[in-house]
């Protein structure tokens, strides 16, 4: 529960030492990169702040050590101002890892050392991993590592985590800190503060329920700074509220300011001794940012990058999709024609191969999409795109900091919604969560690719682009609506730190593509498989005599029941059924259509089956795409909305609102299209 003041250990003869360390540090300094290098795990890495929002544990053995390593979210200090910072702070303060490895961004020494001060004042034993030495070098600056280490009394290991340089030295440093003592650092404050501190410390000492090993000076400093959660901590020790009141009455804003100032003063004194800045030249990053975050050019460039990305995704995946479609069409026909037991042939051919095939066709575009996303993320461009969009949001009277989660939604809305934990203001966070499902995730892409490809030919890439943009527009409009109604009030100020550009690595993009793509394959083997078998079953029932997928089946009964609601959107009962099944996972929209439409006839993939079917044409496929884009987020997203908002009310709101919006937009598309008689 607390950091001990003295902690010298010896290695037991021949025995293993198992101990736990935490990786802490400011956001985007390379904690997760180091964590992956140490543990061999694959925590998500990205070139912006707030990638990691949950702690994650891994293991590493070296020499006699068995380390359990915890990767933490980034934090600037130990006074948490957002959920993810709170997770990091709580772990360091209450779980008291044996050693805290602080990852410090070498090109941002001064700001990073502030956290070091907090950690040392708390009494944590710290090793500094001085990361991103390559960027420091590029910048022309230098740090006298030896001297810095002596000044602050902490071992420092220079590293380049993404190239795995410095790992051995880090192990040695961890070992030596484990074996030696590291006293808590005491920064001397003004005489007045020191006097009050010792008074508080005396009071604390007389409270028996406070664990004797707890660092009382630290506690006193927190009380002096009016830290609100200290009250909670004291309460947890059953300290009487009267005593708590007495203690907290010492707190003053002036003290807090002074305590912070003293730390910064100390830091700047130290850094001035060890840090040599390279000659200030305008960096390439700055020059590029001047263009891509330009007030007029920024958003057009972002849209252009998106448009180009979809062209790329579409172009690259078409030939692969053709091949897969032919393969599954052929396989399905083979099964239906050659298996004697008719229902089994139908189950395998129509149900499983038809439905699953319809989903697996979309492996190429989804993989390509993930590939591009991870290149954009890693290069640092994604953070710029988010920045220009956030600036627009702020201009519209909304909050900033919401576009990284939104752009992540292009991959999957679940991690995207979790990433909102780095938002400081709760109302901002609620809005960002609720609008996220409008960002079109990878699972909706099959519907777009299928129908845009079939009915919009050469403009398919542009149609898909337009759908994504529509998603963004609806999200922003919804944000405005929510801000004006349920979530009135101030939002957190918008300051965003732009990460440095990296040249994206083909290898890491490929790995990221595979990791995320694998999820899609896994889903195909589980939920989607079950889903299509279920759909097949209903499409074949009741047994005997009914035509598979025909109007007399149970499936048709369900579909036709709801059909009237959807007729104004141009959907027949089969589309209705597919959309309902899509509640579970949006891939199932295409999967079910594959099972229903693609089934029955031999030698046909889903594409030719749909093209031959009179129930599908350009206009209703457009309204279907719009509806799929906007309606009910999938089951997993509903789950995460509930978890992150902690409210059923808002979860239900998200479901109902999005479905109503989807209906209205699809209705408008279909009706206006019909009126124009556009020949679609």
């Amino acid at each position, binding site marked *: 529960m607390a950091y001990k003041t003295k902690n010298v250990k010896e290695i037991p003869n021949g025995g293993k030492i198992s101990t736990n360390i935490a990786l802490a540090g400011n956001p985007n300094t390379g904690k997760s990169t180091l964590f992956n290098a140490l543990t061999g795990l694959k925590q998500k890495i990205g070139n912006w702040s707030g990638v990691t929002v949950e702690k994650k544990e891994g293991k590493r053995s070296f020499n006699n050590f068995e380390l359990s390593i915890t990767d933490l979210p980034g934090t600037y200090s130990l006074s948490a101002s957002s959920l993810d910072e709170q997770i990091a702070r709580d772990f360091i303060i209450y779980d008291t890892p044996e050693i805290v490895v602080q990852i410090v961004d070498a090109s941002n020494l001064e700001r990073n050392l502030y956290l070091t001060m907090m950690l040392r004042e708390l009494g944590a034993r710290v090793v500094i991993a001085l990361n991103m030495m*390559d960027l420091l070098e590029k910048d022309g600056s230098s740090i006298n590592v030896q001297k810095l280490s002596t000044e602050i009394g902490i071992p420092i290991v220079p*590293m380049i985590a993404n190239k795995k340089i410095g790992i051995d030295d880090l192990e040695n440093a961890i070992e030596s800190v484990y074996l030696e003592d590291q006293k808590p650092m005491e920064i001397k404050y003004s005489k007045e503060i020191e006097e009050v501190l010792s008074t508080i410390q005396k009071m604390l000492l007389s409270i028996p329920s406070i664990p004797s090993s707890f660092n009382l000076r630290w506690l006193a400093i927190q009380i002096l700074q009016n830290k609100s959660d200290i009250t909670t901590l004291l309460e947890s020790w059953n300290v009487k509220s009267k005593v708590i009141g007495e203690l907290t009455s010492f707190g003053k804003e002036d003290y807090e300011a002074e305590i912070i100032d003293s730390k910064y003063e100390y830091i700047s004194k130290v850094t001035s001794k060890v840090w040599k800045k390279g000659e200030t030249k305008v960096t*390439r990053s700055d020059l590029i*940012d*001047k263009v891509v975050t330009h007030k007029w050019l920024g958003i057009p460039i972002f849209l*252009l990058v998106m448009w180009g990305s979809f062209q790329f995704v579409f172009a690259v995946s078409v*030939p692969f999709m053709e*091949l897969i479609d032919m393969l599954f069409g052929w396989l399905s026909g083979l099964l239906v024609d050659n298996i004697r037991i008719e229902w089994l042939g139908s189950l395998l051919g129509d149900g499983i191969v038809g439905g699953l095939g319809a989903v697996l066709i979309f492996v190429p575009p989804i993989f390509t999409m993930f590939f591009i996303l991870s290149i954009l993320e890693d290069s640092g461009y994604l953070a710029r795109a988010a920045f220009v969009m956030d600036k627009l949001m702020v201009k519209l009277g909304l909050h900033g900091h919401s576009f990284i989660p939104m752009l992540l939604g292009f991959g999957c809305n679940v991690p995207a919604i979790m990433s909102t934990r780095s938002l400081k203001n709760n109302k901002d966070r609620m809005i960002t969560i609720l609008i996220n499902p409008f960002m079109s995730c990878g699972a909706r892409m099959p519907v777009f690719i299928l129908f845009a490809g079939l009915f919009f*030919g050469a403009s398919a890439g542009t149609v898909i682009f337009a759908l994504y943009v529509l998603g963004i527009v609806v999200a922003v409009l919804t944000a405005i609506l929510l801000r004006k109604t349920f979530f009135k009030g101030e939002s957190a100020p918008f300051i965003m730190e732009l990460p440095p550009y990296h040249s994206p690595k083909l290898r890491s993009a490929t790995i990221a593509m595979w990791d995320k793509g694998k999820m899609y394959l896994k889903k195909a083997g589980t939920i989607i498989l079950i889903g299509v078998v279920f759909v097949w079953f209903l499409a074949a029932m009741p047994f005997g005599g009914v035509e598979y997928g025909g109007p007399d089946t149970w499936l048709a009964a369900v579909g036709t029941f709801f059909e009237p609601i959807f007729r104004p959107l141009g959907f027949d009962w089969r589309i209705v059924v597919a959309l309902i099944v899509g509640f579970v996972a949006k891939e199932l929209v295409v999967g079910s259509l594959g099972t229903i439409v693609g089934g029955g006839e031999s030698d046909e993939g889903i594409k030719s089956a749909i093209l031959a079917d009179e129930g599908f044409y350009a206009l209703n496929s457009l309204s279907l795409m719009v509806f799929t884009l906007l309606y009910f987020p999938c089951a997993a997203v509903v789950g995460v909305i509930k978890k992150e908002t902690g409210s059923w009310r808002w979860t239900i709101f998200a479901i109902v609102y999005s479905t109503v919006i989807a209906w209205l937009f699809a209705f408008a598309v279909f009706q206006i299209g019909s009126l124009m008689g556009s020949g679609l």
Partner: protein
Amino acid sequence: MEKSKNTSNNMKTSLLAGSLIFLVAAIAEIILGAFKMYADSKELEEHWVNIIPFPPGIFPGLVVLLIGLIWIVGYFVTRKGQNANGHLSVGTIIALGFIFLFILILLIDIFNAYALGLEDYDGWTILASLRWIIFLSPIPMFFTMKYREFIFTRKKKTIMLQS
């Protein structure tokens, strides 16, 4: 000193000339693209926009337009005596990205048309895809060659850390 002044004068001229050509081309493409949309909606295969070699298209035209705009903003930045390397680089990198994309599409089109024999490719010719590349390439290629060191940073050797 003298040399760097020359380079910046050079760049000023390059940016101006490059952007003007791109802006004019962009407007032509967009107008032609609009005509083509009209022609397509009336299913006029023999329409003149489909015959002239200059590639029509609204969206690709917008790409060219944006690159032209980036460069012209860069030109005005150099006129204020400031550094426009970023403008030159970003415009050129976007252009190179799209050239790469169009080449890729061309290769895939060839594959789709000849290896897979897809029906959509009945009236398609290599030239239809190729002309994009022909019209988009010269200026960015020229910029890349001339200003290579601005656009692509020179790689430094990996540094060794003292232990």
